């Protein structure tokens, strides 16, 4: 059976627990960013751009067999790393689970600064948009 949202969050927390300092954390994040599966160019439309980000961030979603599948990309690699984690946690889950998700891992791994309103990297907007997609799909369902 696929892991649920909290199980995935817990494994991320465990992975980050191995790092000694911020450089290791960020190196890992950068690595995740570089490895994020590329988003189809056709999906990088203005409609899919998340507003309020300093770097361009695109997000698209599709609904398959009761699960929401997210694809995303960014011009900046750290944001891409953060996106990669969000996708790992929220993609391929049901709309209900996504809507109810409490993303505690961000705080636990010491990345909450990126979720703060004051940061213009759009992570907060990204989470909101992911939940919006989930809501839209749940209504369709």
């Amino acid at each position: 059976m696929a892991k649920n949202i909290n199980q995935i969050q817990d494994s991320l927390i465990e992975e980050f627990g191995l790092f000694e300092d911020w450089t290791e954390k960020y190196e890992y994040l950068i690595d995740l960013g570089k490895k994020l599966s590329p988003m189809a160019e056709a999906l990088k439309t203005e409609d899919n751009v998340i507003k309020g980000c300093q770097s361009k961030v695109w997000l698209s979603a599709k609904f398959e067999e009761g699960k929401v599948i997210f694809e995303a990309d960014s011009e900046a690699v750290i944001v891409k790393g953060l996106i990669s984690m969000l996708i790992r946690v929220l993609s391929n889950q049901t709309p209900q689970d996504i809507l109810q998700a409490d993303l505690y891992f961000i705080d636990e791994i010491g990345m909450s600064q990126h979720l703060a309103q004051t940061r213009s990297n759009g992570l907060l907007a990204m989470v909101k948009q992911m939940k919006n997609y989930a809501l839209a799909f749940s209504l369709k369902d």
Partner: protein
Amino acid sequence: MNSYRSDFPILDQMVNGKPLIYFDNAATTQKPKQVIEVLKHYYEMDNANIHRGAHALADRATAKYENTRKKIADFINSPSTEQIIFTSGTTGGINLVAQTFGRAFVGNGDQIIVSNLEHHSNIVPWQMIAQEKGAEIKVIPVSEVGVLDMEAFKSLLNSRVKLVAVNHVSNAIGTINPIETIISEAHNVGAKVLIDGAQSVAHISIDVQKLDVDFLAFSAHKLFGPTGVGVLYGKKELLNAMPPYQGGGEMIKEVSFAGTTYNELPYKFEAGTPNIADVIAFGASLDYLNSLSHQTIWELEKELLSYASKRLLEIDGLKIIGTAPQKIAVVSFLIEGTHPQDIGLLLDKYGIAIRTGHHCAQPLMQRFDIVGTCRASFAFYNTKEEIDAFVEALKKVVLMLK
């Protein structure tokens, strides 16, 4: 060690476990303790509303408030204090001119010239009034190194041009523009000139009479003073001819329902209770600046600019955006294969504050076909040691990202 640093208490702190290196002075400068002290003293001793009370505190607050106006007049060599209008900042001053001068003197088919180097604050207010009036915005192009194309500027001039609005110094890339020539050429066709001095006043001395400039707008917070205060200087005949801006208290002489007569300059443009405390503290920042002289500041910052430019070029793939021969101490740069946002984020981990992004100058970014830059902007309290630490951190950051 730089002896001015101790005047700026904020500089003495750790950020992310590292000593703070503040290289975001073009966004806002730090405040000397003399300014902070005046702010505190005002609220502890003098706080009152001005120009109305018949009591000791009101008198004291009014005198200090008006004294700042006098200091500003001296600072830019304004012929009178009435021509110094307090605003909320550069943006506030530009909007004031757009909504009063623009409303009264720009008509259908007229033109307003701006440059490709402008901050959004010196673009959008003109677009708004141009749209309302059916006027056109013309743009002075910028060369590859970030210098205004003066031949193109001259060819844009004609009798339909009512106003030329350009910055003295570009916030995004540091270019110092030839405003003397811009002003005299514009005057030759009867156009007025507004200079956005936001980025220049802290670094270059300005004499409004010698320049013969029609309007000058700037912000206290980029001049080692408080946020929320700015200045609009204007020629008296223009300010008198302009309709009032906002209505309210202070700006009126007499109000009745039959009609209202407006107050004289500068109060005609200062509706409502102003930012008294910050205006008074702004006076202290001018005193501080005068105690140093622009010459001293200029020498120190010129040194920092050439040192930083030289050291930054040690980094593989680093390109400086904006290499005008005349620049203030601002270095905008890009590093091949990296995004400015990543650089800024990781430098922050080293306690280093720079600005990344489009710097509210998107048309300029479009001109260079880039998404943004990393910008390090220096003030006289910065040091070569800080630049060394910055370059070393930057090298590590690039290694992480590549």
